[in-house]
């Protein structure tokens, strides 16, 4: 391997990149767009769940319960309905997600000391939102029920009772439980995977398709030199994207960075080499841009998004799928970044993930070199 030839290829490739400012611009704008979207627009946090109420009871007791719902920041009272058909229509059309039905004998039941049931009808199609909102509703009702018991004992002249058990919650690593604090660091691997694969997956296929590969074959450049030379400029773009993402996380979104910045960049470099080489392998195998394009998207973006543990927790997936996630390198980098950013832990805890990333990068580089043949057929 001669550095001069590697540099020559790298130079040729960077000139080619510079002459297509639109693609280059998109490679840099894309991470920013993603980060802005996730930072400002996308959240799984649930609040202000729209709620309609059907108050059949119409008593001070039922109004007290309803006002507890209205006062909670998790619900937003959309109005009152008078019959079941209205409830159905409101949920069908998506106007409301939940309906609270207070039965006619609500106050009477409470007076007579029997348990009164209120009904909560929820649109379960978005099960995540529904689960969380039902949880909130249960908390509201529980608090109300407890207040009744405490009130009753007090009214009857007894010594006031203390609530028996109190739950104190302490959340570590992400005290405000903001989803952006884990989504933003977790996004970096997805961005890098996609950008890397988009950029390199066409680079060799293009040469074949346009016929310029013959020119390259007639030069003394060797396979590994060609691959390395082609990686260099894209590596620079990729690392620039990482830098951009880290800076935006710090200054725009104020995501706490508790661990080592150096470790972050070293691991990013390792991951990037692997991702770029994966794109290169795709390009070498496909030999035409249409196929390379399809393969790159299918093999990188969607898996990096769904199987990396960024949005969907890996621990609840069935075991065969958990096995598949071990093949998704973004998975390791996502947990590395969550660890570095939020927990501030280092290699002592994350060593396993780091080693697997190195293995992935080495395997991809080797595969690219193995698959590439400097021959015309």
């Amino acid at each position, binding site marked *: 391997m001669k550095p001069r030839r590697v540099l020559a290829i790298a130079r040729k490739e960077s000139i080619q990149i510079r002459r297509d400012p*639109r*693609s280059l611009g998109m*490679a840099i704008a894309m991470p920013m767009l993603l980060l802005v*979207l996730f930072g*400002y*627009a996308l959240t*799984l*946090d649930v609040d202000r769940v*729209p709620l309609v109420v059907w108050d059949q009871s119409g008593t001070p007791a039922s109004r007290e319960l309803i006002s507890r719902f209205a006062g909670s920041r998790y619900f937003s009272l959309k109005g009152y309905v008078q019959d079941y058909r209205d409830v159905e229509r409101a*949920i*069908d059309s998506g106007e409301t997600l939940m309906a609270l039905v207070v039965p006619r004998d609500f106050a009477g039941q*409470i007076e007579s000391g029997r*348990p*009164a*049931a209120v009904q909560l*009808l*929820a*649109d*379960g*199609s978005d*099960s995540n939102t*529904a689960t*969380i909102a039902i949880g*909130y509703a*249960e*908390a509201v009702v*529980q608090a109300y*029920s407890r207040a009744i*018991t405490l009130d*009753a*004992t007090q009214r009857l002249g*007894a010594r006031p009772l*203390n*609530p028996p*058990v*109190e739950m*104190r*919650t*302490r*959340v570590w690593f*992400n005290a405000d439980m903001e989803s952006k604090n884990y989504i933003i660091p977790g996004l970096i691997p997805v961005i890098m995977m*996609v950008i890397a694969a*988009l950029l390199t997956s066409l680079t060799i296929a293009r040469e074949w*398709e346009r016929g310029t590969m013959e020119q390259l074959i007639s030069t003394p450049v060797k396979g590994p030199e060609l691959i390395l030379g082609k990686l260099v400029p894209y590596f620079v773009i990729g690392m620039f994207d990482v830098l951009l993402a880290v800076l935006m996380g710090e200054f725009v979104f104020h995501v706490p960075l508790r661990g080592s910045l150096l470790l972050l960049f070293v691991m990013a470099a390792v991951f990037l080499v692997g991702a770029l080489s994966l794109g290169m392998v795709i390009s070498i195998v496909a030999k035409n*841009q*249409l*196929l390379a*394009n*399809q393969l790159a998207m299918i093999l990188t973006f*969607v898996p990096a998004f*769904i199987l990396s543990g960024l949005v*969907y*927790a890996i*621990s609840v*997936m069935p075991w065969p*799928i958990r096995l598949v996630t071990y093949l998704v390198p973004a998975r390791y980098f996502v*947990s590395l970044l969550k660890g570095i950013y*939020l*927990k501030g832990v280092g290699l002592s*805890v994350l060593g396993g993930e780091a080693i697997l990333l190195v293995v992935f990068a080495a395997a991809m580089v080797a595969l690219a070199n193995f698959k590439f043949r400097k021959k015309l057929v």
Partner: protein
Amino acid sequence: MLERIWQMLIKEFIQVLRDPKMKGVLLVMPVAQLIVFGYAVTTDVRNVRTAVYDLDNSVASRELVSRFASTGYFKIVEYVGTDERARELLDRGDAQIVLHMNRGFEDDLRAGRTAQLQVLADGTDSNTAGIALNYSAKIVGEYSQSILNGRALRLLGPVRQPGQVRLQSRAWFNENLESRNFYLPGVIAILVTLVTLLLTSMAVVREKEIGTMEQIMVTPIRPFEFILGKTVPFALISLVNVVLVTTVGVLWFNLPVRGSILRLLFATVLYLLTALGVGLVISTISNTQQQAMMSTFFFYMPSMLLSGFMFPIANMPVVVQWLTYLNPMRYFLVIIRGIFLKGVGFDVLWPQLVALAIIGVVTLGLASRRFRKTLA
């Protein structure tokens, strides 16, 4: 004219399907992906890894812990004895939650004081943590209420019991609140959109880049016929794809189909036309396949994120919510979830269909205008 379009169709099919790898990518990959992702897309919170740090180790504290364990939401992974060990488990992610009770938990309960349970949660995944804390609060609340009832009983006697309120919740359309039912239609939509967009966005620019566009220009084919020839094959391939993926989704995952399949098919054709339109516009404004690919992704990614596939649109800022009205995938998701899960018909879904039709006409119109310029 029909003859020319026919020839064009044959050429396109040969070109797309000549590479056996391409057939695999178009027909096998989406099904394989659906199966893998179908299992992966779930936000159900079960088996939260829980460590117990019980310094009291009394009947009462064990009773509370067993209430956690018996719900199925929590899985006790370890009983720890020190702060350090609890911290270590959270650091490594081996535990997501630690239940901590200090010495004197039971004594406090007996004496009528307020006993404390401390719950330490790993907040890195705030969604899971939030749901797990919700469940914990419910368990603790019920436990607390049962003790309170006992006390009230002793104080007031059985006759003058205060009433209680219970919540009975029922989820419509998805009784067991399985998140898979919600996400699967979305996975179908994103997979099909991806294939369609990638195919069409390369369609015209490919001829330009390889130089075969000149050959087409010397044939007697007219711009209109050329557009049809470029659209119909991809529309057909995508439609086959939809049918294939949906069938697998229904048969493999038991996705409920509550509405009419015919209506679903009609809406899908309408949606595919908008996707084709977008793909063709990208193809006509790009000079190289690299540009087309980047532009496709630039469109696809935000439209997937802003469609309500994973992130509810209602949670987005108002400005972004307006933006989502431009997104065809948004309407398609409402339609396919509506038909699959709610079983609603066009009387509810017509606004979405109208919106899709408008977007389709606009994008296809734009594409054919740009085409005429390239070909003129």
